[in-house]
């Protein structure tokens, strides 16, 4: 498989992941799918020959943003009425 087919498969995976974020009812599942979306985006940056953005997106998108979402979920659901 050459690199063009690989990029098209990754793009289709991205579109599938973002459609399923809307359909999953469980909030924790949606956040985990969002972390996968961020990682596939980091692979696409490497395919476009920009390594600076790939490192930054992998560290910031799949690291810090997912962590903040999980912390927010803990504070939202942990306090009972």
């Amino acid at each position, binding site marked *: 498989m050459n690199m063009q087919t690989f990029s098209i498969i990754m793009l289709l995976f991205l579109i599938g992941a973002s459609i399923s974020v809307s359909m999953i009812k469980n909030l924790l599942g949606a956040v985990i799918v969002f972390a996968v979306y961020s990682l596939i985006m980091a692979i696409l940056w490497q395919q476009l020959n920009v390594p*600076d953005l*790939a*490192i930054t997106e992998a*560290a*910031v998108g799949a*690291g*810090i943003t997912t*962590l903040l979402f999980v*912390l*927010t979920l803990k504070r939202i659901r942990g306090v009972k009425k």
Partner: protein
Amino acid sequence: MKRILAVSLTGVLIFILLLGVMELPRFGLPDNPANNEVMRYYIEKATEDTGALNIVTGIILDYRAFDTFVEASVLFTAAAAVIMILEQNGRNKVDAGLLGESLILKEISRVIIPFIHIFGLYIIFFGHLSPGGGFAGGTIIGASFILYYTVNGSDRSREKFSYNRLMGIMSTAIVVYGVLKGYSFITGGSHLESVQLPLGVPGNILSGGLLLPLNIIVGIVVAITMYIFYVLFEKGEI
């Protein structure tokens, strides 16, 4: 009903935007309108003017250094806004973290955290020679601060990372960046020069004039901001 309406609205939006995509020039041709003489100037003269081997770092820290200064101040503003909104002094009980519960985590983290620091410092220091730069390295060092907080609890972390010390370091860093690169608004007409470090030989670490100090400053701001985000989301006070 609302669902069908929203999906059809999206379909119309995507169809109109795809009509626009059909008018774009082909992907990846060398004579696109986006690849004009600005690109050629940047690629040819980046090493002579700035001394950096990574052209992207040379652009964001020398030719367009003021954009990076404003972006670092956006990070500082976000951290300040989160502190203002989420700070609750004294309403949470102090916790000792995992101190009494897990000896394995404490010992392993004491061994691993220096290695994480070395990796983050490597990415920051070699920002002008290889991919990386201040943002990715700063995030990695911030992650090591978060690991220290998780394992050791909040009262031991408050001794090392107190509020006054973190805010002092971050504010000093941003002010130093602004003075180093914003001087030309005041002195441009009089041709007064600011601090100019020598360009050196491209390929050494200590080359490129002000690139290395500015990378370190951006790394410090990003690391402290990531630590502040985590602590305020978790606990409510620093």
